[in-house]
């Protein structure tokens, strides 16, 4: 008995040893071709994309790789080193717009092809946009298309009758007039519409492929796209590989042979992978690493502007945050510079307003410069305001409350610092609440919090991306704050085709919200990343992750 046991044990051990000889590699979904010897760039996507179908995206884990697989009617063309860009035609060669700026007609180039050789037509655009708006597609980002007439009605419809649903679809004001012409009618004049159509929800989808196989986007073998790269391999949760698309309309501008995407979530590990040579670009970086690299003036380290604001939300439905003086006091009693210099360490700018730096006002200057700062840090004044505010609410001292944040090292440190500052400067007790991202979102929607950490990275370069969040109907408001005059100014801005009138209205709206302070701005973001020195051509628009398509490895 004992002998056979030991034999069995040794056999099992041998078997295991044999297993260890095998490498990884399971569930591969390779497509034909795609040998990537030579100049392949390696980056980390942090997480597995939920889907790579333009209509089904959920966040940056999808949009970053997707932007390299597809291209829209327009695209962003780099200008200079700091991420500035201009919007130029991509699939569209030229376009006309009507007097009232509500109708756009796009004229596509000749000879456009999909990665599988199919010709690309205007119908592919109409099809894709309507598909994203179809309520049965359940697209998270369909709202991005609501600028188009008929889009919101179609997408929010609960109609079950297919004929009636089709009728609604037909009312969506995007039409392929012929193979090369696409006409779009908007609800309001939208000055940033041309930038908007470079956005991933506006990408085309190969109608023929989709109609034959609705799951084409799940597998590299069946994936068809029109961008600078095409997908050759997708090992779920492990990595993506893409190679240069020879059918891309500007294929000669693409110098890379391909891009390999890892999916490592832990940011410390990602950094270590960069340092050990497994990655060519590392973004985002842990805060302390940013500080260290900045201090060292490391040659592979870059900081570029980002059009984004970091702020805290107040629950204006809960005492004492119902009182504007209390909110103002809290906003004035922290030292933003301490945070940006010691915690975030990436050269961020303290924020005293909602809209970040980086958008142009009508006189050519930065919107933020024109708008200016709305308040100052002032501890004495803050103490006074706090006392007054509390009295108005019938309280004699500030009750203990919690700062809610989602579990990221940066948010934790900032919250710790602010907790300490409020204790020091105002003598109040603050607790910290660390919750999962999903829980935080849910509680914000339910107004079940005191103060909550937030950040907004712009969807497009225009102040409206920030302002739109806080209307009374916006599902992102989450502060319980409503203002009729604010809504009025925002609507005015949306409906006006006169740029001056529009900008004025936006400034007025910002005046209103900053006077009431339902949110407390803290700093404006920057983008810090490292890139191996032998790589050039990486382009970093302020409202996106780094674009790699023009990169070149020397």
């Amino acid at each position: 008995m004992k002998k056979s046991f030991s034999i069995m044990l040794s056999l099992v051990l041998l078997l295991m040893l044999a297993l260890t000889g095998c490498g990884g590699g399971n569930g591969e979904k390779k497509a034909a071709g795609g040998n990537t010897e030579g100049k392949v760039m390696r980056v980390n996507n942090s997480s597995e994309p939920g889907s790579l179908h333009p209509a089904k995206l959920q966040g940056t884990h999808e949009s970053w790789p997707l932007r390299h697989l597809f291209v829209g009617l327009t695209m962003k063309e780099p200008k200079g080193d700091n991420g500035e860009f201009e919007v130029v035609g991509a699939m569209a060669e030229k376009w006309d717009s009507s007097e009232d700026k509500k109708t756009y007609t796009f004229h596509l180039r000749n000879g456009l092809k999909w990665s599988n050789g199919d010709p690309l037509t205007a119908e592919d655009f109409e099809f894709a946009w309507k598909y994203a708006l179809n309520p049965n597609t359940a697209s998270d980002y369909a709202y991005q298309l609501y600028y188009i007439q008929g889009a919101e009605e179609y997408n929010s419809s609960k109609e079950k009758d297919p004929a009636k649903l089709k009728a609604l679809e037909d009312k969506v004001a995007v039409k392929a007039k012929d193979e090369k012409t696409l006409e779009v009618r908007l609800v309001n004049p939208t000055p940033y519409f041309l930038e908007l159509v470079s956005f991933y929800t506006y990408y085309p989808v190969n109608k023929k492929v989709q109609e034959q196989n609705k799951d084409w986007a799940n597998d590299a073998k069946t994936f068809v796209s029109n961008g600078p790269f095409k997908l050759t391999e997708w090992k779920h949760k492990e990595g993506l590989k893409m190679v240069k698309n020879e059918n891309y309309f500007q294929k000669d501008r693409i110098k890379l042979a391909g891009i390999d995407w890892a999916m490592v979530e832990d940011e410390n590990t990602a950094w270590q992978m960069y340092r050990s040579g497994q990655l060519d670009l590392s973004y985002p970086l842990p805060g302390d690493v940013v500080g260290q690299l900045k201090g060292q003036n490391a040659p592979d380290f870059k900081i570029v502007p980002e059009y984004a604001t970091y702020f805290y939300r107040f629950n204006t439905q809960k005492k004492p945050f119902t009182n504007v003086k209390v909110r103002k006091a809290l906003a004035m009693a922290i030292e933003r510079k301490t945070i940006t210099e010691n915690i975030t360490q990436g050269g961020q700018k303290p924020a005293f307003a909602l809209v970040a730096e980086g958008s142009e006002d009508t006189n050519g200057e930065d919107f933020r410069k024109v708008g200016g700062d709305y308040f100052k840090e002032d501890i004495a004044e803050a103490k006074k305001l706090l006392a007054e505010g509390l009295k108005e609410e019938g309280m004699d001292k500030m009750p203990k409350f919690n700062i809610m944040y989602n579990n990221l090292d940066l948010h934790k440190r900032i919250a710790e610092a602010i907790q300490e500052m409020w204790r020091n400067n105002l003598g109040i007790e603050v607790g910290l609440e660390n919750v999962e991202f999903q829980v935080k979102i849910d509680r914000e929607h339910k107004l079940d919090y005191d103060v909550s950490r937030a950040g907004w990275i712009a969807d497009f370069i225009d102040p409206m991306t920030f302002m739109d969040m806080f209307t009374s109907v916006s599902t992102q408001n989450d502060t319980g704050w409503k203002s009729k005059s604010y809504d009025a100014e925002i609507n005015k801005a949306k409906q006006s085709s006169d740029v001056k009138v529009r900008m004025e209205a936006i400034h007025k709206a910002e005046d209103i919200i900053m006077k009431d302070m339902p949110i407390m701005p803290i700093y404006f973001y920057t983008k810090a990343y490292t890139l191996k020195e032998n790589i050039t051509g990486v382009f970093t628009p302020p409202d996106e992750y780094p674009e790699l398509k023009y990169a070149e490895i020397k």
Partner: protein
Amino acid sequence: MQPETRLTADMFRPVTDNFKDAEKIERPSISYRADVWRRLKLNKLAMAGLFIIIVLVIMAIIGPMISGYTYYKQDFTARNLRPSAEHWFGTDSSGRDIFTRIWYGARISLFIGVMAAFIDFVIGVIYGGISGLKGGRVDNIMMRIAEVLYSVPYLLMVILLMVIIGPGLWTIIMAMTLTGWIPMARLVRGQVLQLKEQEYVQASIALGADAKWILMKHILPNTMGLILVNVTLTVPTAIFAEATLSFLGLGIPAPRASWGTMANDALVSLLIGNAYQLFIPGFFISLTMFAFNVLGDGMRDALDPRMRK
């Protein structure tokens, strides 16, 4: 042999006068407890462990008081300082004094460990005791329930609990004790099953003693040794688990610190050359684990009559 020499009784003299002495037990009589303690003392490693634990506890109490700093005060002009005369263990990335935080964290980590072990003990004894005493059907069912609970993935339970109730010191302790009591229960039950058959216990029952009495008077004293060993070995497990929870972001909320959260926060410090911020809490975790483990091992050896020297 010479015929003339005959052996007579007066040629022989007894070695001792008292035959009873021949049966004398040379070792002094000693109670079980004293014997265990004596043997434990002989185990140098275990004694080292005990000594370390005592020092740690003392430092946990007085440490934060003697340093002159608080564990939460941030000083951004004094970030990331190496150990020096002003800051004996240096400062962290927010300028907080590490020496103070280590000993404050010691309080938290030790508290969690001891509390978890204690609660495991109480629940385990009661559950295992009742299960063993009742026997039969009840015992079967109770043990099955225990087995089921044991099978639910520990981490899932802990996270669920953390989310439902919210992160905090007591949440962590509660989460850890969810399934931690089961080994103790099994142990006690095993002992009970064994001792139940003893005559003195049966006599007690015949005389009308209830379960509580039996447990307290008969079962516990005989099981105490094993229980103590189990408890001593539970403490490090709890500390370890707390460190892992911190890694997952479910640890003690800031600005309070435990060794686990300090170590987790300092992972990035290693990457940028401030390795001391990671190694100091790591060292203390290991030291505590080491001390409790060797003490527990030593106690187990001392309790085992077969290893008597």
